[in-house]
C-alpha cells in the first residue's frame, strides 16, 4: 500500500502557532496575570533578599558560631555575641516531637475516614479535621496554657517516674512545665490536620482496583494496609509530613506561651522545662532589642525561613510526584 502523502513535495516549514492576544484588552488581561506571577515570585525574592541584606553584618561578624554557639549578649556594645544554637536546635526538637506525635494520629484519622468509616461518619470526621485546621494558633496557645499544660506536665511526670531510666525521659531540673514535650504536643495539634488532609487525599486517589485485587486474593484488612496502601502512598505521606514539619518550625505564639525559653542547649531532655524556638525568640526579644540585636534576630528569621523554604519545596516536589493526576 502506498503512503497517503506520497507526493514528492517537500514538507513546508513549520510555523509555531501561539494563541497570542490580539486585542488590547486581552493583552491587558494576560499582562495582569503575568504581572501577578512576577509579583508572587518577587515577594518571595524580595523577602529573601532583604533578610539576607539585613542579616549580612551579623552573619559575617558571628560566623558559624551564629548557628552553633549558645550565647546571646547585647549588654557589652564592644563585644555583642549573638548565637542561636539552642533556639535552632529547640525549633527542630519541638518540630520533630510534634511530627512524631502527629503522624500516628494523622495516618489513623486518614485511614479511618477513607477506609473504615461509613460515608456519614467520614463526613463528620472530615469536618472535625478541617475545623481543627481552622483554629488559630493563638487560640491553641491559650488552650495550651490554660488547659493542656497541667495535663501534659502530668503525663511527663508519669513518663519520668516510670521510664526515667531512659535518657529521653530524665528530668534533673524538677519542673515539667514549659518543656519541649508540651510544645511538641501543641505543635502536633496544629499539624495533624495538614498531614491528615494530604494523606487522606493520597488514600482517596489510590487505585481502588489494586485494593480490591488484594482483597480478592484473600488479603486481610491489615495486610492490605501494610503491603498495599502504605507502600503505594508512602511518598505522599512523607510529603505531607514535611509540610507539617515546615509549619511546625514556623509556629510562633502558641509555643511562645507554653515553652520556657533557655539559652542553654537542651539536647534530648524533652520533658525538662527548658527549650528553644527561633520563632518564639523573635517575638520575645524584638520589642526591647537594640538595632544590632534586631539585625541578629533578622538573621535568625532568615535561617528559619531558609530551612522551612527547603522543607516546603521538598514537600511540594514529593507531593506533586505522588499525585501525578494533579498535572
Amino acid at each position, binding site marked *: 500500500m502506498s503512503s*497517503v502523502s506520497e507526493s514528492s513535495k517537500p514538507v513546508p516549514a513549520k510555523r509555531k502557532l501561539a494563541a497570542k492576544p490580539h486585542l488590547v484588552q486581552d493583552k491587558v488581561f494576560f499582562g495582569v496575570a503575568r504581572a501577578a506571577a512576577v509579583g508572587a515570585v518577587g515577594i518571595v525574592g524580595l523577602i529573601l533578599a532583604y533578610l539576607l541584606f539585613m542579616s549580612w553584618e551579623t552573619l559575617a561578624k558571628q560566623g558559624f558560631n551564629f548557628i552553633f554557639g549558645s550565647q546571646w549578649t547585647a549588654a557589652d556594645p564592644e563585644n555583642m555575641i549573638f548565637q542561636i544554637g539552642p533556639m535552632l536546635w529547640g525549633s527542630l526538637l519541638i518540630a520533630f516531637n510534634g511530627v512524631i506525635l502527629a503522624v500516628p494520629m494523622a495516618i489513623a484519622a486518614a485511614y479511618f475516614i477513607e477506609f473504615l468509616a461509613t460515608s456519614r461518619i467520614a463526613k463528620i470526621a472530615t469536618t472535625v479535621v478541617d475545623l481543627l485546621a481552622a483554629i488559630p494558633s493563638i487560640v491553641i496557645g491559650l488552650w495550651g496554657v490554660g488547659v493542656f499544660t497541667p495535663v501534659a506536665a502530668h503525663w511527663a511526670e508519669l513518663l519520668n517516674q516510670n521510664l526515667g531510666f531512659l535518657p529521653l525521659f530524665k528530668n534533673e531540673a524538677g519542673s515539667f512545665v514549659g518543656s519541649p514535650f508540651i510544645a511538641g504536643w501543641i505543635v502536633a495539634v496544629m499539624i495533624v490536620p495538614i498531614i491528615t488532609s494530604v494523606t487522606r487525599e493520597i488514600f482517596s486517589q489510590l487505585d481502588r482496583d489494586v485494593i480490591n485485587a488484594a482483597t480478592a486474593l484473600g488479603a486481610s484488612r491489615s495486610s492490605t494496609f501494610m503491603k498495599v496502601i502504605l507502600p503505594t502512598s508512602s511518598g505522599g505521606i512523607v510529603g505531607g509530613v514535611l509540610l507539617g514539619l515546615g509549619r511546625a518550625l514556623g509556629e510562633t505564639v502558641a509555643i511562645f506561651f507554653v515553652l520556657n525559653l533557655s539559652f542553654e542547649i537542651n539536647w534530648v531532655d524533652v520533658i525538662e522545662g527548658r527549650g528553644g524556638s527561633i520563632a518564639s525568640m523573635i517575638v520575645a526579644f524584638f520589642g526591647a532589642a537594640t538595632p544590632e540585636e534586631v539585625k541578629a534576630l533578622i538573621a535568625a528569621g532568615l535561617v528559619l525561613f531558609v530551612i522551612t523554604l527547603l522543607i516546603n519545596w521538598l514537600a511540594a516536589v514529593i507531593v506533586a510526584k505522588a499525585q501525578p493526576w494533579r498535572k
Partner: protein
Amino acid sequence: MSDLSNAANLSTIEAHLRSEDVNVWFGERHVLRDVSLTFPVNQVTALIGPSGCGKSTFLRTLNRMHELIPSAGFAGRILLDGEDIYEPGVDPTNVRLKIGMVFQKPNPFPTMSIKENVLSGLKLSGRRGYDATEIVETSLRRASIWNEVKDRLGDPATSLSGGQQQRLCIARSLAMNPEVILMDEPCSALDPGSTRRIEETIEELSETMTIVIVTHNMQQAQRVSHQTAFFLAEDGNPGGVVEFGKTEDVFNNPIDLRTNDYVNGHFG
C-alpha cells in the same frame, strides 16, 4: 495529489473556504500533511476517516481553534473568500465570528439561561444594538428548537436534554450569523432521535451557509453531505486526504482501494 481526480467535478462551483497544503504539528509530531480541500458556498462537506487520522484537528485549523493547544505548529494557507486567515495581523477572534463551531459534546454555558446562551456570542464579542427578542427567536427557529423552548427561555440551559442542548449550541452559533459552521461529530453524544433532528437542521441550514462536518457515521455522511473527504493516517505517517469528491462518488464509486475498504466497513 494524484488521488483527487474526483475533485475535478467540483471545480465549477464557487469556492468559499479553501485549504491549501495545510500541514499540522503537535510539538515535533507531524500529524497532517498537505491537505488541500475546497468548501463551496452553501454545501455540506463531510470529513470521514478512522480515529486519529487528523480530521478533527484539520477542522480546528479552519477557524484557528487549533492554536489554543500549546506547541501547535502549522504550515499552509486557509482562504476565506480569498483571504488567508493565517495572515499575520489577522485577529483570530474575527475569524471565529465568521466561522462558527459546534462541538462534539454539547457545551451550553451552565450559568446562563436558554435565552442568554443564544445571545452569549453577541455579548462575548461585545456586539451592541441588536434586537434580542428577534435574534433569539430566529436563531432558535433555525436550529429547530424554538417550539420546545419558547415558553421557558428563562430556564437554565442545563435543564435541557442532551439533544436539545446541542441544538441550543447550534442556535448560539447561528445567532452570530456566521458564513461557515464547523461541526465536530455533533451527534456522537446523542441518541438516534436527536441525531435525526440535527441532521434535518443541517439540511435546512445548508441552504444559507457553508457547513463542514466531521463524522464517524457513514450513513450520516451520506445523508447530509454534498461532498466528502476521506482522511487516513498510516503507520505513524502524518494523516492526509486519500480521496475527496462528491459524496455519491466517494461512497459508491471510490477510486482508492482504501476508501472502498473504509466506507464498506472493512476497517476503522
